[in-house]
């Protein structure tokens, strides 16, 4: 019995979403096959990686993670410039964590100033993330979206409870949007449909099905993403075809596995390599499940994953 390549024919394709402007603009998505099955379709763009910075110094971050950013986290603009110039990262994700009522409650206008300063410091595309406080994000993301007009950013995250204002301002200022839902295929689809119904161009949406860290619910995210990708590619469902975003860094660096010292738990080995590998393994699993854009924290983890992405793109 001779071997016959078990090729399947798909009709769906992921939308190509471009972010940023000029030479540094980045395209994500565009595949018309399941992750890295190059024998039956095209994968025009590699998964992109954004590095996460925040609008307050990284005091609470674990030591492993603070080290590579030593001396730059006091000023978000300097931090962003460092990521672009020194680390050579292609996308910056700025989390406006201090706008959260529990973490500083900064005003939308202050957040807008930070966004302007960061945009002034870098030429790579910017992802602007709120604090995921439902009410506060509506105020903050509206104002920062205006401040970032013309730079083709990704604004996020819009959730079922607050998407209208956020989407309206992202639309008015020509940005892309992250639609977030909670670990459920149907909720992810519904969120995309809600945005489309208010006139948001479906090819400007990115779906965040809620990320998790390795060991902390990764299997749920993994399967939800695989199912979304199957619906997009195999069933050609237009409401499932936005690229997928994995916001993993903050989950990974909260896990005990990335923080506990070797003296506390000797059987886990060196904390630095462990943390980096934990983030890189989380990232590569998300890429296997269909992620098109990852938000990560540790520069070394990003470097490791990028090398593997390069190999994934080679035939």
């Amino acid at each position, binding site marked *: 019995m001779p071997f*016959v390549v078990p090729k399947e024919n798909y009709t769906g394709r992921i939308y190509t979403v471009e972010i940023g402007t000029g030479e540094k603009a980045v395209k994500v998505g565009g595949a018309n096959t399941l992750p890295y099955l190059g024998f039956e379709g095209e994968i025009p763009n590699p998964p992109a990686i954004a590095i996460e910075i925040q609008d307050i110094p990284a005091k609470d971050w674990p030591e492993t993670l603070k080290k590579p950013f030593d001396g730059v986290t006091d000023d978000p603009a300097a931090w962003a410039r460092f990521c672009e110039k020194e680390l050579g990262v292609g996308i910056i994700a700025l989390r406006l964590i201090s706008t959260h009522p529990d973490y500083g409650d900064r005003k939308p206008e202050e957040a807008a100033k930070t966004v302007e300063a960061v945009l002034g410091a870098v030429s790579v595309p910017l992802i602007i993330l709120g604090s995921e406080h439902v009410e506060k994000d509506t105020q903050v993301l509206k104002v920062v979206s205006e401040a970032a007009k013309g730079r083709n950013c990704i604004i996020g995250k819009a959730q079922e409870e607050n998407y209208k204002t956020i989407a309206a301002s992202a639309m008015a200022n020509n940005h892309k949007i992250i639609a977030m839902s909670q670990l459920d295929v149907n909720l992810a689809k519904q969120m995309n449909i809600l945005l489309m119904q208010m006139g948001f161009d479906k090819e400007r949406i990115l779906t965040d099905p809620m990320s998790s860290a*390795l060991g902390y619910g990764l299997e749920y995210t*993994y399967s939800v993403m695989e199912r979304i990708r199957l619906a997009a590619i195999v069933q050609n469902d237009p409401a499932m075809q936005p690229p997928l975003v994995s916001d993993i860094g903050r989950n990974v660096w909260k896990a005990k596995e990335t923080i506990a010292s070797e003296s506390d738990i000797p059987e886990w*080995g060196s904390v630095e390599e462990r943390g980096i590998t934990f983030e890189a393994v989380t990232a590569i699993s998300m890429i296997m499940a269909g992620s098109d854009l990852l938000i990560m924290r540790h520069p070394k983890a990003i470097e490791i994953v990028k090398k593997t992405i390069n*190999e994934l793109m080679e035939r």
Partner: protein
Amino acid sequence: MALSGVEIFKHLPKTNCKECGHPTCLAFAMKLAAKQANLDSCPYVSKEGKEFLSSASAPPIRPICIGHGDGSVKLGEETVLFRHEKKFVNPCALALSIDDSLPDTEILKRIDGVKTSEIERVGQKLRVEMISVGHTSSDPSRFSAVVKLIRENAPKIPLILNSKDPAAIESALPHCKGARPVIYAATKDNTEAMVKLAKENSAILGVYAEGLDALSSLTEKIKGMGLDDLVIDPGASTPRRMIEDYTMIRRSAIKKGFKPLGYPIITFTSSKDVFAESMKASIGIAKYASIIVLDSIERWKMLPLITLRQNIYTDPQVPMQVAQKIYKIGDANEKSPLLLTTNFSLTYFIVQGEVENSKVPCWLAIMDVEGLSVLTAWAAGKFTAPKIASFILESGIGDKVARKELIIPGYVSILSGALEEKLNSDWKVVVGPREANALPAFLKNRAA
């Protein structure tokens, strides 16, 4: 690939003799298709019919058992391509490569690394299961001596004898009597000798050929020689080829019923650097490899890989659960608050994470509700006032805290009255936040 009743019927005697206990051959065929009858009940089925039907009803990926006794490893038997469809059956085995050109002291160190690799995670004990003995010394007697050394020091650990030289394999096999090792590998150049050795020693044969065409021809040839306990390697050495080749293998076996590729996959993730190896091993775990042979097993590297394997091979229909008990978070003492939630692993992880975030030491009471989340458990009648009360009272936590106050999840605030009644009169019930992310603020406010 499962056959329909009508397809099975074609291979039955069609005499309606009823000796199988069914009124007609067709009725029997239908029962066979539904897996409610066994072909052995038919006394008259032809030899050809029997062969055809038993091979058609065999699992699409052959079950393989390596090693012996309680260290043995079961592989194969997979039935799906995506884990949401059905649980991935047999978790891939992780193996450490030990080369025979290493000095004995280094070899003993590596053996010890495998023997002490166990990590406990969410109630499961997980470890590196196998050792692959590499043969770069080009001296068969050295290979044999190293296999002997490993067998003496780690008699329970299943082995992969990694040499394409039949002479080396032959010299090592006497140390593996009854231990069902993997011989890796048969190639087109040594097929006859390797098949003979595998048969004589009831070993599993690894089959290596570059590409899926060559690999399928070789496994068919070997099966024709009477050997069917195989693991296969199409030589995919890059991440992209691993995903493509392994997907094609799994798809051919499961969706097309293509027998020549219906075997567990073995992969060697050897890489330039240790991080790159972690990436390739992750791809192997997610994408259908059954044996992953690693160059090194540093503890910091194995924790993420073993965790990934646990995640991928979790049953999607059965929620992961943590054990019912009162967990101590931080330096909790008699003044620390006591929080309650359910034993669904995600619920536990999120609540525990947020409590740790708050930096307020706490007691976290995790109640067994068969792995359901708070609202689901409440709706299913498993998270009720009487049940919670008996858990809290029997746990003895009342003796450890000065203030008998139980903080319950905001979603079940409705329980607070009934729960206070069920607990002894000195207990007070406090309604906490609905979502875990509000816990840090809640706990800090209370502490202030």
